[in-house]
């Protein structure tokens, strides 16, 4: 029962892995491009949750120093890096959406299977 115990102990990691898998499943199985982008966002968010939870320390508080108090902080590094990661995610999403807009203007659909069908019909 080591595995169950480990999963219960690491419930934050467990949850973020499950969300990650849901996001990947959406990306791989859906042909609608908007849904693909949603899946991409879910996947990224799961990774961000995972990274931030690495930095958690039992009983720790937000890492802002208050003069004259010594309290335990959480590890600030993962949180700081995920601020960067968030911006990367926004950038990728924005660019992907602009490409979908262009594809919609060209083909009149946001479904990648339908675009393939249109391409095949034209050849």
């Amino acid at each position, binding site marked *: 029962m080591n595995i169950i115990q480990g999963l219960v102990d690491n419930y934050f990691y467990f949850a973020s892995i499950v969300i990650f898998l849901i996001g990947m499943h959406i990306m791989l199985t859906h042909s609608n491009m908007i849904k693909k982008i949603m899946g991409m966002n879910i996947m990224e968010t799961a990774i961000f949750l995972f990274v931030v939870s690495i930095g958690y320390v039992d009983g720790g508080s937000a890492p802002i120093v208050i003069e004259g108090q010594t309290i335990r902080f959480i590890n600030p590094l993962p949180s700081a890096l995920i601020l960067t990661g968030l911006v990367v995610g926004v950038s990728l999403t924005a660019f992907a*959406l*602009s490409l979908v*807009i262009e594809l919609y203007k060209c083909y009149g659909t946001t479904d990648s299977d339908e675009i393939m069908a249109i391409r095949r019909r034209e050849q």
Partner: protein
Amino acid sequence: MNDFVLQTVTQILMPFIQVYGIFVVLNGHLSPGGGFAGGTILGASIILYALTVDVKAAEGIYPDERAEMVESASVLVFVLLGLISLMMGRNFLTNIGIFPSPETGTLLTGGFIMPVTLAIGAKVASTVITLFTHLFEEKKS
């Protein structure tokens, strides 16, 4: 969207949101927040205006030409701050004391952190607004 209540409330709220955004940017090094959070709040105020009142009017508040200038200028400021420390014989992006060092916890502490945060805030706000207006209604350039 033509809802009188919504539009009026938005126009009343906008200055408060913007002041809050500026506060978050300026106090990024003292309290939770910073360039990214504050910039997004600033951008959100304009997005709210665009959604409830009119996208064209929002573009009037923040036209494309100014957006391009702000985009380029803010990142250039960031790189140039790094290069200044290079010219002073330190490594790139070394934190150099710009202001005379006051006591911890006041606004002008932290060397070049506040200029950097301001640049990031301007950059993020501008990017959020520009992305929104361009994706919301593709314009004829």
